[in-house]
């Protein structure tokens, strides 16, 4: 539905969206997100997947966590990481929605071209 409630600039939300997209801009972080959607991983288990230090992976996890893409929980000495499906869905949905709008327009565009050609309607 078209609504103008969104005219109100929501700085909190702006900052959140920027964090989301920044977090997903890095290939390692995207990979961590994909893996963490399939289950819980400790940071050290994640570190085993990438040619980088534990500290580097921990940093990536921190960025993802700040963006709300993953959740962290402590279990003894380990930190367990799992994906936050809702946040990830939101990012994908933004672009998907825009694609849908244009697909709708292009469908109508095509139909109209065919109709106008049937009429022989040139300008």
């Amino acid at each position: 539905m078209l609504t103008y409630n969104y005219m109100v600039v929501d700085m909190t939300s702006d900052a959140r969206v920027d964090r989301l997209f920044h977090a997903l801009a890095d290939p390692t972080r995207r990979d961590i997100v994909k893996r963490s959607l399939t289950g819980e991983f400790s940071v050290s288990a994640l570190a085993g997947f990438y040619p980088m230090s534990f500290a580097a992976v921990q940093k990536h996890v921190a960025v993802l966590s700040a963006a709300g893409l993953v959740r962290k929980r402590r279990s003894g000495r380990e930190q367990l990481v799992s994906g936050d499906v809702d946040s990830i869905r939101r990012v994908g949905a933004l672009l998907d929605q825009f694609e849908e709008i244009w697909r709708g327009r292009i469908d109508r565009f095509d139909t109209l071209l065919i109709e106008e050609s049937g009429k022989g309607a040139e300008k």
Partner: protein
Amino acid sequence: MTVMKVEKDVEAKRMTIVSEFAAPIDRVWQLWENPRLLERWWGPPTYPATFVDHDLSVGSMVTYFMTGPSGDRPGGWWRVLEVDVPNLLRFESGFADDDGLPSTVMPFMINRVTLSEHPKGVTTMAIETRFASLADMEKIMSMGMEEGMKGALSQIDAMLA
């Protein structure tokens, strides 16, 4: 398939959609240039658009409003940045305030439409949309969209791949 390719660039805040039509380039251009034709495809059936001012010359403002199911009439505008008939149309677009003027608080985007005909009688149309900021992008998504949040996991996976 009419739509040939969709590219979404999250970092660049940009989406490109390429489609192909079995029509000569001049007829495809007409659907942008003739406001009576344009309004038959710009808005969804539930929000048909009516173009008020429409002149595709550089610097000119195109204005329109849409009519919603409950009689609401949200307005929109384009500002023409570059025209090369019938190959190129570049314009800013955004939402209007209650007086029909470009809203200063609403986001806008930059659109680049390129048309080419090859072979004869087949026209390719590429539309590239760039958002001024990610926050703008989200606001636009939240506003004009009929479609709800329908990001299935498979689509997300495709985007993340």
